[in-house]
């Protein structure tokens, strides 16, 4: 079964090319072969899981590589590898991708560029699967950029919409900004270790990367001396911040909601945005270069905490159903980073695992709502529970999972993060708890305003979506309940597959679990109190907390700040550089040319009046002399005699007196 691993990314890649070339002529306009490739990948992944489970739940070890590029005295190899972490990611990606492919058959029905949509979706799946199977950092980086490309293509799928095309461009450029960090981190490690293979890099951590120090100056902090591993890890983390939408590079993700909703579910909720979390987990030996107080992990935890809290506060006040979910995704990605940052390797990855299912469920649910109502604004919805019962119930299941209600999936994973935070970094625990309250509150608000109460917009005639869309919803709803059960305190299967350095799971704490659940219930109760029972009206709250409301609804002004700090200066610099190029650099060239021209004019003048003038002067002189001489040639005898006599006098004078 393991030997079939390369097929998992290869099949969708082939599918993508096939659909791009023959799209319309394939069965189901290309959607059936696309679904088949992922179904095959999903079955292979399940087969591998089954085999390893049958042999005592030991994670698989498999790798294959080829010579990719000889350079100097070394050879760069490219290959695929599969371990427990990779297997967990494979299961997530193939499952969600398969469901989203099926759902899209209904959602994208009738779109004029239907085959192209599936071609892009296949390209994304192939790159994402390659990303999780890469056996070296370079291939990971290549796949990383390719998922970025597919994300760009899919956000901008409806490219005639100006918002969509701008969002696509923004997503690509903002993530690329982070990728520069990853690129430099890759170069740092490649240069220090002499190889990009994960094995070689990890083998060098203790002996080399953790002990070599580099000193450099940081703005605001001053001169610092850090281990090379910390520098490399933080550089790599910048890449993760871009892709996983961490503060302040999160700004692209909410805008990315301009893409078709299945894309938001697959790429911008479940898989690609989680790639940053996966990257940190994959490179964990470098991040965790020391057992006590890794700078890099503290940084990860800090960024994650800020992101989790900030995005949750914005989620409270958004009115676009997809944007609420987008900020929720940003916040949950922050949670995962927090988990990894406090040393909860398994916890962070486990949250990625469960989150993928329930958040994909929520997004597909929102897609169903949009499909049924034709609007994304929750202020125009209300009372949809009766019109779209299947969507409603699956949405509620996923919401419970996201809020972290026992025993739904999110409860188990969030609890593990809180537990690790409590044990290792107390302040992160409180941030996590506060985030839990906010999460439950905004999700409660979303469900109430969308599905409950009376319809607020009478001309919207909502209808339930077809079975091809609701079936994936039910499957994801089911996973929202059960996905957490694979890593319960009494049966930690997930932990067997995904753990760092065979660490034991920390013992379950009832107090922590109770605190987490209390936070969730508090948030939900608050939402019910405001939006369902209307004990306090939302507008009163808005008035009471006016400054906060303004801050949150303006998304903390991060977009504006980045625009003022980066985009605007960029354009000014570009214009200035062009002016410099035209007037100074080219001006000098033209000046030299012009000087040459002027010099040649002067030379021409000199040539004509001085050089040639001299020549002419000689000519005139000769002519003048000749004319004078002709005056002498009078032909009269007396003149000749007179001249001869004058000559004689002169001669005598010369002879006598000299």
């Amino acid at each position, binding site marked *: 079964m393991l030997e079939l691993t390369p097929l998992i990314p290869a099949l969708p890649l082939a599918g993508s090319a096939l659909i791009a070339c023959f799209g319309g002529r394939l069965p189901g306009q290309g959607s059936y072969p696309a679904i088949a490739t992922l179904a095959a990948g999903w079955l292979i992944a399940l087969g591998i899981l089954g085999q390893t489970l049958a042999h005592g739940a030991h994670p698989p070890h498999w790798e294959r590589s080829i010579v990719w590029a000889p350079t100097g005295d070394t050879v760069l190899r490219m290959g695929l590898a599969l371990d427990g972490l990779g297997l967990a990611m494979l299961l997530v990606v193939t499952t969600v991708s398969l469901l989203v492919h099926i759902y899209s058959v209904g959602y994208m029905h009738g779109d004029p560029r239907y085959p192209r949509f599936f071609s892009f979706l296949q390209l994304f799946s192939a790159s994402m699967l390659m990303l999780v199977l890469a056996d070296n950092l370079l291939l990971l980086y290549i796949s990383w950029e390719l998922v970025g490309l597919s994300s760009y293509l899919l956000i901008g799928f409806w490219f005639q919409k100006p918002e969509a095309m701008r969002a696509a461009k923004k997503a690509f450029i903002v993530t690329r900004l982070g990728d520069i960090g990853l690129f430099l981190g890759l170069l740092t490690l490649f240069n220090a270790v002499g190889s990009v293979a994960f094995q070689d890099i990890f083998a060098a951590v203790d002996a080399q990367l953790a002990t070599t120090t580099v000193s450099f100056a940081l703005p605001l902090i001053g001169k610092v001396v850090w281990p090379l591993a910390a520098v490399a890890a933080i550089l790599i983390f910048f890449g993760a911040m871009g892709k996983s939408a961490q503060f302040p590079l999160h700004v692209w993700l909410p805008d990315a909601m301009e893409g078709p909703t299945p894309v938001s579910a697959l790429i911008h909720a479940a898989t690609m945005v989680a790639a940053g979390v996966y990257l940190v987990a994959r490179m964990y030996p470098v991040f965790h270069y020391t057992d006590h107080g890794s700078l890099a992990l503290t940084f990860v935890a800090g960024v994650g905490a800020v992101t989790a809290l900030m995005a949750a506060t914005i989620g409270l006040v958004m009115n676009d159903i997809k944007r609420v979910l987008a900020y929720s995704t940003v916040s949950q990605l922050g949670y995962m980073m927090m988990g990894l940052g406090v040393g909860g390797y398994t916890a962070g990855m486990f949250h990625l695992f469960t989150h993928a299912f329930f958040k994909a469920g929520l997004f597909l649910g929102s897609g169903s709502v949009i499909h049924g109502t034709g609007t994304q604004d929750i202020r125009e919805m209300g009372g949809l529970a009766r019109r779209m019962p299947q969507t409603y119930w699956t949405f509620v299941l996923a919401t419970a999972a996201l809020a972290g209600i026992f025993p739904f999936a999110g409860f188990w994973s969030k609890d593990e993060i809180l537990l690790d935070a409590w044990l290792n970094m107390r302040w992160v625990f409180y941030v996590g708890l506060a985030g839990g309250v906010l999460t439950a509150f905004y999700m409660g608000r979303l469900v109430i305003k969308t599905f409950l109460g009376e319809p607020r917009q009478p001309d919207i005639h909502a209808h339930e979506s077809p079975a091809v869309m609701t079936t994936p919803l039910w499957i994801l709803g089911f996973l929202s309940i059960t996905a957490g059960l694979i890593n319960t305190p009494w049966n930690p299967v997930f932990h067997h597959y995904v753990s760092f350095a065979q660490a034991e799971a920390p013992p379950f704490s009832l107090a922590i679990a109770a605190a987490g659940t209390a936070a969730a219930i508090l948030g939900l109760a608050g939402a019910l109190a405001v939006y369902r029972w209307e004990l306090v009206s939302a507008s009163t709250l808005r008035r009471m907390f006016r400054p906060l409301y303004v801050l949150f609804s303006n998304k903390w002004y991060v977009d504006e700040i980045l625009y003022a700090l980066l985009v605007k200066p960029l354009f000014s610099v570009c214009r200035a550089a062009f002016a410099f190029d035209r007037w100074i*650099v080219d001006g000098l060239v033209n000046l030299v040319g012009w000087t040459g021209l002027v010099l040649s004019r002067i030379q021409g003048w000199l040539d004509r009046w001085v050089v040639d003038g001299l020549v002419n002067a000689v000519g005139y002189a000769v002519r003048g002399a000749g004319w004078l001489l002709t005056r002498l040639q009078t032909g009269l005898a007396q003149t000749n005699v007179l001249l001869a006599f004058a000559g004689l006098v002169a001669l005598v004078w010369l002879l006598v007196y000299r």
Partner: protein
Amino acid sequence: MERWILTVITFWPLVVLAGVLCIPGRLERFIKWFSIVGSLPPLALSVWLWMDYSGQAGMRYVMKAPWISAIGVDYHVGADGLSVPMFFLTALLTTLSLIYSLNITVRVKEYFALFLLLQTGMFGVFASLDYFLFYVFWEISLVPMYFLIGIWGGPRREYAAIKFFLYTLVGSVCMLLAILALYFATGAETFDMLRIAEQQPFAGRGVVQSLVFWALFLGFAIKVPVWPFHTWLPDAHVEAPTAGSVILAGVLLKMGCYGFLRILLPTLPEVSAQYSLWIGVLALISIVYGAFVAMAQMDFKKLIAYSSVNHMGYVMLGIAAASSLTAADLTDRATALNGAMLQMFSHGVITGALFLLVGVIYERAHTRDLREFGGLGAVMSRYSVALWASCFASLGLPGMSGFVAEFFVFRGAFPAYLLLTCLATIGLVVTAAYLLWTIQRVLLGPTNERWAKLPDMDAREVVSVLPLMILMVLFGVYPKPILDILNGFARQLAALFGAG
């Protein structure tokens, strides 16, 4: 066969040219197809050369015969890992340019004749191992391009042609002086590049050495072009006919880089190492500044022209890193060189495609102003795929050949010039920004009514772009076939600069 192959490749276009001259000028279609078919044998031979050379190192296919024995000039040609890909690139781009030029209607016979002459000049530059021969071919390649711009160019063609000609001529004169200095300093009455490089006539002679270095530098840097000698490039490109731009960017610029790698570094390694930081700084400026200025362009063709300044900066960064004074080891230097040479090749392919695509849109819309386009993606689907792919290749998307080249340059330059390398990454972001913005302005958004009826790319245009697209993907996914050729040369040259 081996001895003759380079001679056949180089002079074959002249044979075709003679044929073209014999055809009456009114048989325009016949002239066009005769030239296209005539350009195929060198292409086939250059592919054979590639296959045959793969995995080897050192100079091969050498042919040497006395030419002007009074001053020691030989007819001396040969090829190695540096020049083999250049032969292929030259042959391929010429054939594709000729195919694209099927739509030329003005003075057809002269146009195709000049193109064939140009091809001989370019082949000759890459084949020559004798300075005299090299110089002759260098100048031969200049003249047809001057006429191509000056006769078939845009509205400001005369200004652009003269600027191009004079600017490069200044460079060649400097180069000629340096060549003479080398010739006299060697004292062996030879113009043999390899022998002069072996003898290193200026080793240890400070001032003279520097003078010769900067003279050669100027000659090649103008051609590359390195900032601040680049301003002829946008003018020449904007005014040149499409196929002229393709050859100019695809091959003529590479002659400058080729000069650095074939002549400057091997012949004056000592002083090259000494000044490598300066070259690195100029390279950095070319990269970042080229990207910034490209972003400010509203003319599609000028934007691509400035992107060439940006991309050739990576080649120069690789060259600077390979010759740096620092304790970089052989693999680092060789990697920088591999990156530089790969960038030469892939820039030829990618920018060649981009100029063809600019030509396609210009011939339909009769404007290149980016502000006037929009929404063409819905009108011209084949065109949009091609432009999309080429722009992404140009911005260094992994999986395309430009990425491998840039990665190797950065990898090679990282230990030598850490700060320069880090700053150069600014260029990566800005390049992505301006190319995506270009895609947006041309292809995306609501369709402008003016362009709603533009026809998609026809067979001629597809045939001339498609091979380039295949190549950019091929070497991006699997660069081993080209690195098998380049690496031998890279290691040999890197060894000259010490192993740490």
